[in-house]
């Protein structure tokens, strides 16, 4: 019979979460700095860049917003584009919430504010290995937020002269991270079908209209395929 651990886990959960996402926070450096520099070139002050990172906390939509930024600001266009790029979070939140049982009810709206792609993906992985504790989630959220605020503000202060991170493969660090996390779900029922449908859906739409629509289309295709697949007894296990 295994001995239950007598030590409270609260503190180590925080550092465990922070450590789990540390490589991601590091890999975000070139992108944060690049985004800050682009924001500065569009006329945002470092304080405004910091405010946007702290309020939105979503890299992809921040890049799109800065791309659309002009004077006067096309407010409606920027806000609608931000919403469209972030619609994938609706699915992420719906998926992770049932696994947040260890997080107190009143903290869930706070936790969801920090549902960055990478936090979500790591939280899903964590939830399959054991209970997703508030400490672990908090550690991941705090680490990635502090890093993103620091990198983007630094970029806005540095301004121009920042290189293109895709030249060195930094962009692929995130792709590889998501592939690694994706593969950790490979034992799930209907995995191959879901992946095939999502890959086909997102790639076809991407070829026609690159952008957030491709992510949404791929996600919907994969989810529909999973919903429509013939039910089998062993799936209940």
């Amino acid at each position, binding site marked *: 019979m295994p001995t239950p651990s007598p030590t409270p886990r609260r503190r180590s959960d925080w550092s465990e979460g922070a450590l789990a996402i540390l490589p991601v926070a590091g890999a975000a450096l070139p992108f944060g700095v690049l985004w800050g520099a682009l924001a500065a070139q569009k006329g945002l002050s470092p304080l405004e860049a910091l405010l946007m990172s702290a309020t939105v906390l979503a890299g992809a939509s921040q890049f799109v917003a800065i791309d659309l930024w002009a004077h006067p600001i096309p407010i409606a266009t920027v806000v609608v584009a931000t*919403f469209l790029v972030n619609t994938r979070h609706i699915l992420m*939140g*719906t998926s992770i919430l049932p696994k947040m049982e260890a997080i107190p009810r009143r903290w869930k709206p706070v936790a*969801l504010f920090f549902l960055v792609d990478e936090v979500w993906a790591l939280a899903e992985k964590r939830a399959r290995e054991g209970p997703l504790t508030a400490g672990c989630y908090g550690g991941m959220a705090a680490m990635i937020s502090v890093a993103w605020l620091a990198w983007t503000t630094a970029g806005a202060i540095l301004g121009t002269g920042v290189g293109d991170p895709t030249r*060195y493969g930094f962009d692929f660090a995130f*792709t590889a991270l998501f592939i*690694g996390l994706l593969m950790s779900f490979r034992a799930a029922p209907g995995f191959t079908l879901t992946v095939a449908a*999502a890959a086909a859906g997102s790639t076809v739409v991407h070829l026609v209209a690159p952008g957030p629509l491709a992510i949404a289309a791929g996600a919907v295709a994969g989810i*529909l395929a999973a919903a429509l697949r013939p039910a089998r007894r062993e799936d209940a296990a």
Partner: protein
Amino acid sequence: MSVDPLTLLTIVLMGLATYSTRVAGLFLVSRVPAAGRVRNALEAVPAAVLTALVAPAVLTGGIAELAAGAVAGLAALRLPLLAVVILGAATAGLLRAAGL
């Protein structure tokens, strides 16, 4: 250091738009039944979203992205996540530097 009022307004609206997508699950998740097709659909969300995030970049990027995606996928069968990230990014970086 200055904050322009219209810039601040845009930032706040962007924040609200983003938060609405993140918090929406709170209002949706109670409607999810415990079993059946809707449940299957919800359980497929992680794999479907992760695939949709990476597939266009890997499948339409070029030889470097295709190879790096394959390396990451194979590495994930055996190696820890950090090694997967490093091997994948290094493969993409090296093959791009080689002009692929």
